[in-house]
């Protein structure tokens, strides 16, 4: 009986609505947690898989030896590789295209690579201006690698402890 009366009073004094209003008014003055994206960024794991890059050795020689393991392992068939022998007898790629529309960013190419040539960087805020822009060729990939070499090697080093 007393319980019923209590519920009746609570109902008619809009008890549950008051609880809801109390919650929102408390959050109203709380500290806001929004991250202002272009200026602030959330921390990224060293294993983050973003835009691709091709790396070079410290002496400037490109790492990729056109073994085509990445092409074979790619589940989305996003990688196209063509190769020929260079004058010094080594095998190097002539064409290394990645279609970013096909790519699912699984990171298998990075895992398969025997010389750590193809890697996925932490870049994720990129855009294309035309449909053809989605295919990035060898030159562009090497450029990305050159630009971000320090970040890539740092991420690799951080991650190497857990491999």
């Amino acid at each position, binding site marked *: 009986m007393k319980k019923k009366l209590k519920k009746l009073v609570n109902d008619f004094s*809009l008890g549950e*609505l008051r609880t*809801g*209003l109390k*919650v*929102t*008014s408390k*959050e*109203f003055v*709380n500290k*806001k*947690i*929004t991250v202002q994206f272009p200026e602030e960024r959330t921390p990224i794991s060293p294993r983050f898989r973003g835009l691709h890059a091709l790396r070079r050795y410290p002496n400037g020689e490109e790492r990729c030896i056109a073994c085509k393991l990445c092409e074979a392992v790619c589940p989305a068939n996003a990688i196209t590789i063509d190769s020929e022998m260079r004058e010094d007898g080594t095998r190097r790629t002539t064409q290394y295209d990645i279609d970013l529309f096909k790519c699912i960013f699984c990171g298998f190419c990075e895992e398969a690579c025997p010389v750590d040539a193809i890697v996925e960087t932490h870049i994720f805020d990129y855009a294309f201006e035309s449909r053809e822009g989605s295919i990035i060729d060898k030159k562009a990939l090497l450029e990305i690698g050159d630009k971000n070499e320090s970040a890539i090697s740092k991420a690799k080093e951080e991650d190497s402890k857990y491999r």
Partner: protein
Amino acid sequence: MWQSFVDLTHQLIPWFNGSLADILIIVIKGLALIFPLIIMMAYMTYAERKVIGFMQLRIGPNRVGPFGLLQPFADVFKMLFKEVIFPSKSNIYLFLLAPILAFVPAVAVWAVVPLGEDFYIANIDVSLLYVMAIGSVGVYGIVLAGWASNSKYPLLGALRSTALLISYELVIGFVLVTVVMVASSVNLNTVVESQSGGILNWYWIPLFPMMIVFWIGALVETNRAPFDVVEGESEIVGGTHVEYSGMPFALFFMAEYFNMIFMAMLAVLMFFGGWHSPFEGIPFLEGLFGFVPDLIWLLIKMSFFLFLYFWIRASFPRFRYDQIMRLCWKVFLPLTIVWIFVVALMTQLGIGPWF
């Protein structure tokens, strides 16, 4: 033929000079009310986004201008430059008439609102009835928008929304009746005048349940959350607004915000003493706050109610349609009728400290 025209103009000129000045004054008064209202409405959208953002631990718009203060203007320009799309096989005249019919009453009600002592556009004898009458005309905007869009979702939204609006008009009407009985006048000026004398003389104390009912009714009448069945985006996409774009949509939007400001104003006028200072009659505080103009008190009280709109929207989930209907017919209507009897008895027998 020509002679009769000349005669007519000669007859017209004497009153024309006199009446022209009167008409000009009325037009200027109207514009002086509407422009601040439009600015207020624009910044209400900003305030709403900020308040709701803060309550959801976000920070709201902050990109356009300092603290995002220019955001309303960005929205306005976006709306102005958008293409107006007409649905095929819709009735274009009615389609365009709908937003106008929604907007015009929302502005027209402001003609009778007293903003201070002797500070109004029109002081008509039946202003509370006028408010009800013009407010009920606003329903046509929704009805026509739903019908003229030639689309399923707008029709469904319009049907359930108009059903709600005309049901809740009854409830609000009964609440107005209690206010009229206590103030013994249908004139908004007189209603406010009779509340003079400090916070304890305002009608929110004797009519407290009616105030709650009125506020919930106001939420329904303005189609605001948690009663915004006209555009329940989880069931009927955008309701009546689905087919509207550009300026016609902006008119609906403006009508909604004008109505919100008006309902907040009406709540202040009827239950919170209008432009009266809350410290009237209190010896020390009255002098301390004596310098504050009437209009500021009115705006402060109104802003509280506008904040309440946002607060409620941020707090509660949307009601189901049949639940709102039940609330109207089975809870509020009996409650208001009983309270009318209570008020009638108390005024007649002179019971209570306030009558």
